[in-house]
Structures are given as C-alpha cells and as structure tokens.
C-alpha cells in the first residue's frame, strides 16, 4: 500500500524493526488460522461437507446460513487485511518480477476463489468444496512463504532491496 512510505525495506532501521515484528506476528495469524480452519470446518473436504450439510450418522446439524455468513464475513475481513498488507510488502522485496507476480496472484486469487467456492458448495454443488478446501490451504501457505521471504530479506540478506 502507498502508506508503506519507503520503497526500500531496509532504508530505515526502525522500518526494519516494524516490518520485522509485523511479519513475525502475522506468521502466527496465517498458521493459527489454518488450524482454526480445520477445527471449524474439518480436516478434509468430506469433513467440510459434513459441517456444511450435516451428517445424520454423526448426529451433526447442518450449519445455518446465518452462522455461515457470520463466519465468512469475519474470516474474510481478517484474511483480506493480512494478505493485502503482506503482498504490499512483497512488492518491495528484492525478488524477480515473475516470482512476485506468482506470489500475489496465487495468494489473492486463491482467497477470492476459495471464498466464492465456499458459498457455491453451500448453495450449488458439493464439487466446489475442493476449490474451497485446497484454495484456503494455498493462500495460507503462500502467505507464510511471503512472510518468511520478508524476514529473510530484512534480517539475513545483507544487500539492499
């Protein structure tokens, strides 16, 4: 984002400290949210279907539309803010342009498609659960990867970005 005033990540020691701790704590968001995702929806696409549609054998009630939307509304907001700010940092990393492009497109479009696929699984067809499940895992992992690259560039790479 534009309010990351400097185009160089290492221009100012305070900026390094700020971005370093931000990236470090955001790593816990991405990993923690992945655990919360498996806790809320389940650890496999079949488990996600059981959570959404219910399962008579396991005495599971289907998830109500209101609960689904409330969960969706909150988790999507957090994900947008975490990914958007992480990708704003990625733009400033000393990486090849194609590398940055893959990170940005893969993470942001996985979040977008995964979120749409969750609604499509609930309303349209169970097939979409695979896009939701694997899309969600992808954006979390790419987020972690981007933040690890940031920390490496901030604290391990000696050359300027």
């Amino acid at each position, binding site marked *: *984002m*534009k*309010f990351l005033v400097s*185009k160089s990540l290492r221009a100012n020691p305070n900026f390094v400290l700020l971005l370093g701790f931000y990236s470090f704590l955001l790593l816990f968001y991405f990993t923690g949210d992945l655990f919360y995702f498996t806790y809320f929806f389940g650890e496999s696409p079949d488990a996600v279907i059981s959570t959404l549609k219910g399962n008579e054998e396991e005495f599971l009630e289907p998830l109500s*539309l*209101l609960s689904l*939307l*409330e969960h*969706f*509304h*909150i988790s*999507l*907001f957090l994900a*947008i*803010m975490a990914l*958007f700010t992480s*990708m*704003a940092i990625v*733009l*400033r990393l000393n990486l090849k*342009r194609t590398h*940055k*492009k893959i990170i*940005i*497109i893969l993470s*942001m*479009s996985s*979040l*977008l498609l995964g*979120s*749409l696929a969750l609604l499509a699984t609930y309303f349209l067809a169970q097939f979409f659960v695979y896009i939701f499940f694997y899309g969600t895992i992808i954006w979390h992992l790419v987020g972690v990867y981007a933040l690890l690259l940031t920390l490496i560039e901030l604290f391990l790479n000696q050359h300027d970005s």
Partner: protein
Amino acid sequence: MIPKQLYYLLLVLAIGLISLQLSTGIWLFILKYGLSPSEVFTYFFGNEELFIMKKSFEGLLETAVPHFMAISLTIFVYAHFLLFTKIISQKQKQFIIFGLFFFASVDIFSPFLIIYGFEIFAWFKVIAFWSFEILMAGLLYILFLVALRARIASSSASVS
C-alpha cells in the same frame, strides 16, 4: 523499485475481495434485520406478540466494537489510494471520505438509540447503511478505474 503493473494488479484483486466482503455485509443485513425500517426496529426493540426479545446494550456492544475497528480500517486502507489520484476533484474526495465515516458512524450508533424506543433511528440506520454501501461501491469503482487506466498506460509504455 516497485513494478507498477504488479501494484495495480494487487489493487484490482484487493478490490475484488473487498467487494465480496461488502456483498456478505449486505446479505447479512437483509437476513438479520430485513429491508424496511419497521423490521429493523422490531429486530432491536423486540416485539412481545412475535416473541422477539429486545436486544441488550451489551449484545449491541459485541457487534459495534469490532465494527468500529473493521470499518475504520477498511475505509482508511481503501480510501487512502484516493489521495494519489486526480481522477476526481478534491471536493469529491472529501465528500467520499467524510460520507463514508459519517454514514458508518450513524449505522453503528443507531441501534443503541433504537433499544430505548427512538423509532426514527431505525430509519437512520437503514438510510446510513445503504448510503455507506453505495459510497463504498463508488469508491471501489473509482479505484478500479484508476488501476485499469494505470495498467493500460504502463503496458503501452513498456510496448513503445
């Protein structure tokens, strides 16, 4: 050096995501409160005949507090891009920024007055909610145009 094309690509993807977020906000509003001010009033003030409980002050706080942070942050993150564009005038920018914060505040504060019986605030909530959504959609449309124009300009510059 920040690649301009990637910057605008990120902005377009972020606009897509926040549009989805706004859509679920509208969906939740209609599902929970309804479309008309009378339905909104009934939801918050309750109705003994319909067995609808009046909402408590603490219950309203649970929704209002995270919304103060989330809506302020969303407006700040997206509207700050306006500062760097010349596609609209300074007055229009000020109108959008003021309008977004004003309508968001009215929307969030109204239920606290509805539970004390001020029915007029159900009208204010409905008007403020839809005004906020329309203004936010307008802001995102402007940012999309800015991103699109800049992407076209930078790709034609790289070709020539």
